[in-house]
């Protein structure tokens, strides 16, 4: 009964924070740690599950299999999947706006292998 009476809210998920493209984003320094923490391991995005986001494979799989589109960063499959709230990726729950903004900024800055 406590659960039933806990609360009835009518909130909406927060929009991502304002993106600052002046801050350079590094693939190896900013994006790969994010993948390592939340994306591979436990049978997720490693060998056998596209895209393979492990070190040495992530950049090629993302850029060559169509997961990033530098001409339409907001429409990139990688970014769209990561900001989805209906069926989030990672499945445990959507990442923070700051983290998804790093991915968007990296794509907008040319999706370099830096």
């Amino acid at each position, binding site marked *: 009964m406590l*659960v*039933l009476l*806990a*609360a*009835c*809210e*009518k*909130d*909406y*998920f*927060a*929009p991502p924070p304002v993106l600052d493209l002046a801050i350079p984003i590094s693939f190896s320094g900013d994006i790969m740690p994010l993948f390592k923490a939340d994306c591979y391991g436990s049978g*997720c*995005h490693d060998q*056998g*599950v*596209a895209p393979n986001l492990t070190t040495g494979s992530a950049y090629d799989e993302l850029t060559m299999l169509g997961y990033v589109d530098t001409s339409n960063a907001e429409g990139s499959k990688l970014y769209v999947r990561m900001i989805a*709230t*209906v*069926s*989030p*990726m990672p*499945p*445990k*729950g*959507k*990442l*923070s*706006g*700051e*983290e998804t903004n790093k991915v968007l900024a990296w794509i907008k800055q040319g999706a370099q292998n830096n």
Partner: protein
Amino acid sequence: MIKRIAGIILLTVSLQTAFGQDESEESTMPTKSLVTSTFENSVMANNQTTMVNAKKELGFIIQHRFGVIDNQYDLYGIYAPANIRLGLSFGVLKNLTIGFGATKNKMQYDLEWKYKILAESRGGGSPVTLTYYGDAAISGSEKTGLKNQDNEFKKANRLTYYHEFIASRKFTNKLSFQVGLNYSHRNIVDSATLTHDRMGTTLLGRYKFSPQSSVFLVYNMNLVSFDDKFSPLTNNNDPLKNDFTIGYEASTGGHQFQLFFGAAEGILNQEVRFNNTNDFFDKQIIVGFNITRQWGFN
């Protein structure tokens, strides 16, 4: 003398006839009997049936959903990230079942309750089985992903709720059908969906073609979405899709196995009604299975 004997004979015959009529009238009186095994267990794919656990019966369920069948790289969804729920349920009273479970996606933990209000019977009584089902789930996701439009985190935004009234009828030993009316509420949603409350219906039919095997069809259809003032929404850009499932069930005593093709990757009823964007009829299909087992402790 002859008249006396004839009178005795007539009286004897009439008495026998009278008692015989009473016995035959009694034998034609319909006997009320409860209908059993409308379905083999309380869950069919992502949906509840009208069945509840027997008193002191423990039920265990494994529910597994693979990825969308859209490319061969991940073996048509088999290697894709999967969703899974493990659940236990117990018949605390004859018609009352309490259960809890854990779901991988969004790390949800749910408490469920189910009460059979009416039992279908023959020879009198209710023509249908009527059951109420409720569920409340809490998400264990990181707070950073649950912040609201004011950039603040509320514990209540981890919660979702589901309620359903279900009516079923066993038309023959082979054919059962049920219809449900449900209500779902989510405390926090994506702004694109514009609604926190949805009301829908579930249609479920099962045909048992052999003593241990059956096929089933389920269709979950949203009837109305409500805005924040609980008025029906007229938005036609609803990104959410209805869930359709077709499947097969094998049942052996206290164990059932269901294999099915559906659309929803979520498992909890409120997830299926609120977070499904896959369209079964646009070939966005997933494979799923349920395994259930019951133990009696009477």
